[in-house]
């Protein structure tokens, strides 16, 4: 059953948005989303790996023997992750330092391997590109959404690359940062609340 290109692209934004609908790839979702910019950075790095590995895997899908497909996928994914790691060190060193171990951990992010196994190995290059791009951007938006909720409540500000774009204490004088939200348990609570809102909105 062939679905349209637009469907494969847009499903990543709502229908199959990874951390909320598929509840996959939660480790960075909980780990790096203390600030909106960490969420965006992590999401973009993952998107790059996802798109590149999806393209390559769908190109090679008829050549890769099915018995060693997972090993082949991991080689491809790990290669692109190392490329991202080096590129981030070279161009955005500060962000790389902040994201730390989560960048190499993209290798074991189940979204990337999941899309390779479930989609790219069965579909053509154009469809796989759309799938990777859609899922990756959905993931980025999800991380940014959780990051902005946590940063806004936990620190009272929204900062994108050094520029505060919103400051809660200037809108509501006397606002006290809700420190709990930028700590680890706040990540779970924030994720749960966002999931809850998504389910309420999505319920027919």
């Amino acid at each position, binding site marked *: 059953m062939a679905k349209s290109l637009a469907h494969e692209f847009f499903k990543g934004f709502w229908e199959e948005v990874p951390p909320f609908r598929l509840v996959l790839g939660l480790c960075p979702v909980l780990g790096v989303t203390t600030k909106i910019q960490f969420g965006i950075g992590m999401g973009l790095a993952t998107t790059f790996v996802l798109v590149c590995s999806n393209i390559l895997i769908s190109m090679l899908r008829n050549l*890769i*023997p099915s*018995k*060693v497909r997972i*090993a082949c996928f991991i080689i491809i994914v790990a290669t692109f992750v190392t*490329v991202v790691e*080096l590129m981030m*060190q070279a161009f955005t*060193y500060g962000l790389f330092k902040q994201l730390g171990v989560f960048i190499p951990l993209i290798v074991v992010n189940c979204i990337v391997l999941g899309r390779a196994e479930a989609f790219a190995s069965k579909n053509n290059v154009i469809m796989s590109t759309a799938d990777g791009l859609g899922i990756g951007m959905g993931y980025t938006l999800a991380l940014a959404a959780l990051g902005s909720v946590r940063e806004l409540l936990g620190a009272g500000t929204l900062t994108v690359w050094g520029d505060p774009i919103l400051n809660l204490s200037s809108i509501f004088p006397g606002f006290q940062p809700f420190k709990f939200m930028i700590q680890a348990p706040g990540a779970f609570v924030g994720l749960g609340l966002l999931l809850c809102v998504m389910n309420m909105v999505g319920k027919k």
Partner: protein
Amino acid sequence: MREMIKMILVLTILSTVSGGLLAYVKVGTKDRIDNQVLQLVKGPAIRSILAGASNDPVADRFTLPDGENEIEFFVGKFDGQPKTVVFETFGKGYGGDVGLMVAVDVTQNQIYGVEVTTHSETAGLGARAKEDPAFAAQFKGQPLTKPIQVSGDGGSINALSGATITSRAVCDAATEATQVYDRLKPQIEDKLKSLP
């Protein structure tokens, strides 16, 4: 049998291509990464040790071979005279290597100042070696002639409480620096003389 050969072939080719690509990217980004580390990690550490220097220590640098390694030296001039050389050494900490920038005062043969650069020590314990200026300040004026040790080991450095291993690592790195300086002293002096 055919299938087996195909599996081995595909895996081999994939790994080879991947290795080649990574080597290419690594070589291509090496200079930029070194530059970023210099600007964002080493540079600020060097500048903060050599506060008040009359030159830019990051710009005035030279490398010397030490055994199999190459060590990069940064020159700090005060009132136009090259008075200190700064270089990085490493000690074994609790969570891996602890990098230490050590400034050696070449006119008085003592340590001018130190600062921790890269480390993976525990936040709140070992990480205070980088954050607590009072700890690093103890190294100022230490003579180069004897090993630098924490007070429990017979030296004069007060260890950070709860972070003995990290404190030892910093002392080891500082001691290593005195030994490196001792080994390379003639070459360093030659280089300093030839500076413009």
